[in-house]
């Protein structure tokens, strides 16, 4: 097997591992066969692979901060998020949106359509159009498969050699478990380390377009970025977001250059006045 094919096989195997793991290890042999098949064909990460990968990464993020126990809040965010996602090129993904219980200000997109936003971010949104902007940015990452590509890169670099050695010995079950864990870990690491800056700028402008498609004022994105820009850089609650994204000011400047007046026809819609706020 050529090294590139071999790597592709390993990757396919890793991404095929079911998230809920490894409770159904009976399918390990199938997965291994799939991995070997995939290595002989043109490598394609299937949509199902993406979804399973995203679920495994989401389990890690939710392990760090669980969902806010407010069903009304969660349903509201899902309604807004799905409506925006339905305007994308991948409306049929099993989109899931959640607010997680963290005072940090951040939002995360997992492959396959899982999107988590922190309570600290949610609290600082002025209105529903700003929520649609944040979710639009994350939806754009999923649609463009930004994380999947980053994970593929990381898996290739860091795990190919090691896995090649392990493939020689060990049971298939064990192999699938280890691949799965490593893939999920690689995916979580992408969230911790950040994507390429150009992917972030790209998600900003695509996020604005998605919000506009959904009928929202796309310039609400400016409000979100200005809120981030007003944060003190030494504030711990923005540490991870600032270390994984270009500066808010540069994002605003890039948007101005990319957007100009092109989205003005969609700017007139006032924000719906129904942003969900928890009852005190």
């Amino acid at each position: 097997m050529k090294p590139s094919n071999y790597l592709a096989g390993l990757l396919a195997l890793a991404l095929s591992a079911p998230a809920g793991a490894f409770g159904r290890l009976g399918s390990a042999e199938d997965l291994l066969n799939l991995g070997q098949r995939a290595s002989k064909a043109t490598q394609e990460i299937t949509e199902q692979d993406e979804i399973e990968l995203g679920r495994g990464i989401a389990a890690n993020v939710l392990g760090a901060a669980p969902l806010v126990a407010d069903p009304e809040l969660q349903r509201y965010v899902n309604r807004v998020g799905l409506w925006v996602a339905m305007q994308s090129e991948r409306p049929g993904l099993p989109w899931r949106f959640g607010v997680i219980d963290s005072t940090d200000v951040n939002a995360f997109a997992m492959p396959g359509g899982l999107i988590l936003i922190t309570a600290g971010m949610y609290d600082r949104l002025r209105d529903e159009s700003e929520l649609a902007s944040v979710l639009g940015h994350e939806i754009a990452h999923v649609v463009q498969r930004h994380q999947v590509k980053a994970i593929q890169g990381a898996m290739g670099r860091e795990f190919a050699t090691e896995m090649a050695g392990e493939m020689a010995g060990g049971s298939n079950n064990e192999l699938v478990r280890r691949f799965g864990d490593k893939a999920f870990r690689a995916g979580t690491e992408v969230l911790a380390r950040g994507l390429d800056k150009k992917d972030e700028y790209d998600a900003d402008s695509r996020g604005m377009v998605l919000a506009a498609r959904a009928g929202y004022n796309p310039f609400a994105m400016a409000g979100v970025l200005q809120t981030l820009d007003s944060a003190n850089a030494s504030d711990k609650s923005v540490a991870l977001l600032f270390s994984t994204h270009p500066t808010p000011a540069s994002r605003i400047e890039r948007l101005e250059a990319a957007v100009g007046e092109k989205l003005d026809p969609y700017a007139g819609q006032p924000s719906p006045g129904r942003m969900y706020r928890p009852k005190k």
Partner: protein
Amino acid sequence: MTQSRLPRPPRRRALALAVVAVLAGGAVLAESGTVLKDTPLRSEPLASASEVATLKARETVEITTRKGAWAGVKTPAGAEGWARILNLRTGSGVAATASGAQLASVFATGSSGTTVSTGVKGMSAEQLMSASPDAGQVAMLDGYAVATGDASQFASQVPLSAQRVAYLAQERGSRRRDR
């Protein structure tokens, strides 16, 4: 922990008062903005509206309102009008109006004055990487999912209607810039 015997610096006291005002009255406070590049200040939030003044890059202004692609601004010289919202940033490090009063930072106060967070959990890279996976939480996330019909119906209540909008050409890098 001991309390400081020194009086609080006036800036912090002003900010604290501003926070109290927001919480008590729900009033919307002006924000401090900094102009990113020279841009016209117009009499109305319209590209065709008359030009009141020219805002200079790095000039500090007060953002009083937001409307579509525009921000209502006040200059230290007292001029009022509308500027393109993407020509303004808020993180200048300068947070004073012409009158010297402290302006609110949405970041510091939160927009709502309320919080949905009950925890004090941070989300550092280390915390993310060391978390134990929680499959039960993923199942709970599934439980909150809504159907497309539900989302469409919710949108139609406002009403929000779907628009056809093309993605924008990528700036710099991937493509040659249009002239």
